């Protein structure tokens, strides 16, 4: 059990009606590993990671997170999700709650921590992402970069075994991308298991252990990041890289 990778995806198929979104994807994410998922838009990256915590269903194949079958009939999805954090493209902070309450909510109602303990932990995490002075602010009063850092703190508050990032910097102005990537780089250095859908190839090159390249619902290439960037094996990856690195 202990040597099974944190996330194991086998032959995953998903379609919306007749449109196939995922066609037989398989990949592993080992404990402490940082995997970047990239590829052209519409290739199924976001769908793939939303399958990992059961936000999206799938038709066939299997996903195991820490040995638990995500698609299992008797699987307690809320319990599983509490062990896998998620950060979204548009932050998705609860707009009617203060920053502190955003981070405390699931701690209180999922982990059953007391309110003071949850708030204490929330303050620690805010400090860690450099926003301790924003505890009582409302999300609308924060910049995009600040909101995304709060969202990361909210994911961390549950002490997850892994965090999924769904294009965490795509909705940010260029000058805010850096502050978010900074926090993510620190997390990676601390050994957090991360699956990151992103177009930030600099981050992928510096921080990721592996890069998974998807196109048209398939995993076309799955390679150590150095190998992927220096010598992509497939024509499709070469074309993608030349487009994205051109500017």
């Amino acid at each position, binding site marked *: 059990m202990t040597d099974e990778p944190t996330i194991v995806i086998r032959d995953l198929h998903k379609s919306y009606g007749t449109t196939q979104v995922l066609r037989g994807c398989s990949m592993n994410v080992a404990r402490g590993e940082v995997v970047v998922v990239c590829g052209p838009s519409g290739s199924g990256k976001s769908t793939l990671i939303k399958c990992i915590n059961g936000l999206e269903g799938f038709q066939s194949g299997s996903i195991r997170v820490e040995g638990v079958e995500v698609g299992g009939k008797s699987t307690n999805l809320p319990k599983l*999700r*509490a062990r896998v954090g*998620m950060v979204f493209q548009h932050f*998705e902070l*609860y707009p009617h709650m203060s920053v502190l309450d955003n981070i405390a*909510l*699931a701690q209180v*109602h*999922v982990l059953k921590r007391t309110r003071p303990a949850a708030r204490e932990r929330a303050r620690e995490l805010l400090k860690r992402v450099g926003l301790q002075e924003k505890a009582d602010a409302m*999300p609308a009063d924060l910049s995009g970069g600040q909101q995304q850092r709060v969202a990361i703190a909210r994911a961390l508050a549950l002490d997850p075994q892994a965090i999924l990032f769904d294009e965490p910097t795509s909705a940010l102005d260029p000058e805010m991308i850096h502050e978010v990537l900074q926090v993510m780089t620190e997390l990676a250095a601390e050994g957090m298991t991360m699956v990151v859908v992103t177009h930030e190839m600099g981050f992928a090159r510096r921080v990721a252990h592996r890069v998974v390249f998807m196109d048209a619902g398939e995993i076309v290439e799955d390679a150590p990041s150095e190998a992927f960037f220096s010598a992509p094996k497939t024509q499709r990856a070469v074309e993608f890289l030349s487009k994205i690195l051109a500017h």
Partner: protein
Amino acid sequence: MPDVILKNLPFLLQGLWLTLTLSVWSIALGTALGLVVGTVRFVRLPVLNAAALVYVEFIRGTPLLVVLFITYFALPALFGYHTTAYRAAVLGFVLFIGAYLAEDFRSGLRAVRPTLIQAGLATGLTRWQVLRFIILPQAIRRVLPSLFNQYVRLIKFTSVASVIGVTELTGAGLLVNAREFQPVTILASIAVVYLVVCMLLSLAGRALYARFAVRT
């Protein structure tokens, strides 16, 4: 204050008191009913959703006066219970306003971004917890102006209760007029009272909304 009003003031104040208590009961219970029905419609609970839909459509297609006749005459006859005009009026208003409030709540619930629901689920909250802590609080804040619109309408609607014999403000005024026959003074005075009550409620609604509005 005109003499005719001053002379009948205790009686008219009793009428106002009835108008206010009718309104408070109807608003409180109607809001609870609307919240439940709107939520049932939003989450599409099987069976209950269909029942909720029938209820809402029935009320929206029925005149208020007919609803009051139903709760005063038809329902007691059908189910063999005794009621008073006051209770039948409260029941009628609750059923009436509940249907409209249900639609307001439902539209507020639907206005919450689905990705925000995903975000809540992703932290391990159950669907029920997401509804309770994330969706409902935002929906309620968002629909406060529509709720208070309905409340203001309801206060004016309570005058219809005079038809089934509740001597609320309008009923009391009509009785006084039958004895004194000064329709202009009496009805104008009553209209001013409704106006003041409704304006105060509107202002309260605006203050609440300003305090709790969700900024995104």
